[in-house]
């Protein structure tokens, strides 16, 4: 059973990718619909398995580490697998209607989409550093491809910039991996941890961790390494932007977080943790500030991603040399932040796509009067915005609450200020959009009606982000499932 589930998760997406590579856009869409169904079912199945039996290690094809591919299937991983299934399905379904099938290069959308999905699953489940690298590269390359599908010179420019940043990040990460392997002789995170349990910490091994985190931070667009993100996310087609913001940046962050949580305590130091937190804070403030000043709708949303990503890096100071319960709160908070941001940002980009489609322009001030015409998409956008502002009862709020508690618990009150200011700044840019759309225009309405299905999808995502806050305890309880010892170390 587990075998089938694992295979279904990791390899069938590749199969869909190959299948869709052979057909045109419309047939690819049919294949994708089937594929989405399968993927969602499989993800759900794995999630239920873990929720029932607890997490486990899994050696793919019977091979064990170091040469085999070792998977680590725990509550957190399956939650992200499920999240990926939800968000990617939503984006896929949306894209099927949204993307114009007549442009020839659009037929590459589906293969890239599926490569991306399989790469994400690899990252969520991957247990050793190198496989994570491969998964990450798979994600980066397909993401770059998806951005390039915009077709225009701008899109290519953004995608090239993205590609170079991603490659640089990968190499820095890989360098860290090399040093790590040279130091410890293993690629498995669990292996490194058990090695450190026996031996004293070798001098200079912090460098490996620093390199890996830096490379991943570049791929996650942590301030000041964020410059590549807004053009890429802003210029891509809306479903692509949604995928990128919701999932792709999370993949590299997820790896950084795993590294930090396992190795941060022995290899890191306080200054580094605070520095990362500081950069995250700067991202929150600077990203929100820039989001307030963007003339174009999707740029606003993209800069908002920069800001929201900043929150994630508060994980580093809030888990370093603090009590167990504070660390747990911080981890839970960050996890919720990842999930709620994924849902909300996907909803926001998809809704923004609808708004742009109907207003016929990407500019914020072109939205004047759209509230009379397109309240449904606007409402989705608004709901997602509520989550970004981290107002209750959204998941964003639950996340912020836990982070506040963690900051208070560890006495690091300065992060509280960051969170409050960040919340207010995010309100500023979200309300800027509301404001523009509430303005009554004198001229006649000339809006285009997007299909109903385009409007429903972001709404569902936004409602999920909203409901996450109410159900966050349940969600977190699955993540915290005890890890079944017995797989390979």
């Amino acid at each position, binding site marked *: 059973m587990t075998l089938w589930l694992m295979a279904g998760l990791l390899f069938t997406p590749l199969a869909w990718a190959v299948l869709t590579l052979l057909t045109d856009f419309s047939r690819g869409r049919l294949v994708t619909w089937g594929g989405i169904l399968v993927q969602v079912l499989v993800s759900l199945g794995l999630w239920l398995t873990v929720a029932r039996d607890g997490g486990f290690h899994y050696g793919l094809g019977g091979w064990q580490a170091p040469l085999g591919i070792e998977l680590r299937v725990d509550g957190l991983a399956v939650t992200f697998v499920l999240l990926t299934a939800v968000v990617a399905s939503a984006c896929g379904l949306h894209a099927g209607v949204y993307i114009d099938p007549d442009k020839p290069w659009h037929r590459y959308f589906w293969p890239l989409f599926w490569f991306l999905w399989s790469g994400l699953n690899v990252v969520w489940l991957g247990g050793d550093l190198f496989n994570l690298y491969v998964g990450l*590269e798979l994600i980066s390359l397909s993401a770059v491809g998806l951005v390039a599908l915009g077709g225009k010179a*701008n899109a290519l*420019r953004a995608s*090239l910039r993205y590609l*170079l940043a991603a*490659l*640089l990040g990968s190499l820095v990460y890989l360098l860290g991996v090399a*040093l790590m*392997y040279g130091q410890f*002789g293993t690629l498995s995170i669990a292996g490194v941890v058990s090695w450190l349990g026996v031996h004293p910490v070798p001098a200079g091994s912090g460098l490996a961790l620093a390199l890996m985190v830096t490379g991943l931070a570049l791929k996650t667009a942590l301030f000041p390494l964020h410059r590549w993100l807004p053009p890429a996310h802003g210029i891509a087609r809306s479903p692509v932007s949604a995928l990128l913001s919701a999932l792709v940046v999370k993949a590299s962050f997820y790896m950084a977080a795993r590294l930090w949580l396992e190795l941060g305590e022995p290899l890191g130091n306080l200054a580094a943790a605070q520095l990362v937190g500081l950069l995250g804070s700067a991202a929150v403030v600077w990203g929100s500030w820039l989001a307030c000043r963007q003339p174009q709708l999707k740029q606003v949303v993209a800069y908002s991603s920069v800001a929201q990503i900043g929150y994630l890096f508060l994980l580093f100071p809030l888990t370093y040399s603090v009590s167990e319960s504070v660390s747990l709160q911080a981890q839970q908070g960050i996890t919720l932040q990842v999930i709620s941001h994924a849902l909300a940002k996907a909803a926001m980009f998809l809704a923004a796509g609808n708004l742009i489609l109907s207003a016929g322009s990407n500019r914020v001030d072109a939205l004047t009067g759209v509230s009379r015409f397109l309240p449904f998409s606007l409402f989705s956008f608004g709901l997602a915005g509520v989550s970004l502002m981290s107002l209750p009862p959204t998941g964003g709020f639950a996340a912020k609450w836990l982070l506040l508690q963690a900051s208070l618990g560890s006495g690091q009150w300065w992060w509280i200020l960051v969170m409050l200011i960040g919340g207010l700044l995010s309100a500023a840019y979200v309300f800027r959009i509301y404001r523009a759309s509430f303005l009554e225009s004198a001229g006649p309405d000339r809006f285009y009606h997007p299909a109903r299905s385009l409007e429903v999808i972001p709404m569902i995502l936004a409602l999920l982000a909203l409901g996450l806050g109410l159900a966050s305890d349940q969600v977190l309880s699955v993540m915290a499932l005890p890890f079944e010892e017995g797989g390979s170390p």
Partner: protein
Amino acid sequence: MTSSLLYALAGAILCGIGLFGLLWLSHLLRKLLAFNIMGSGVFLVMVGLPQHQGGPDPVPQALVLTGIVVAIAATALAVVLIRRYFHLSGMTGLEDEPASPERGPE
């Protein structure tokens, strides 16, 4: 001992050169080449460093092989994109193009 350090140092130097090129050069193809140099440096570190534990380690060899495949794929993608970009814009660098007005819907 020294040989492994030598490999590692050489790798580090290559990395440095590549990084410099990647950040400093403006022509896209040069950037791409710099990326490849940097990649080579990383691979060198990877295979070179673990040797001190008595003879070649098979794992890094396998990893580097995979790494090279990934790097080739990336290079290929980059080349495609650079070519297409050059066709559309006539430019070989990523500097901000002269005043792009209203971009229209997407």
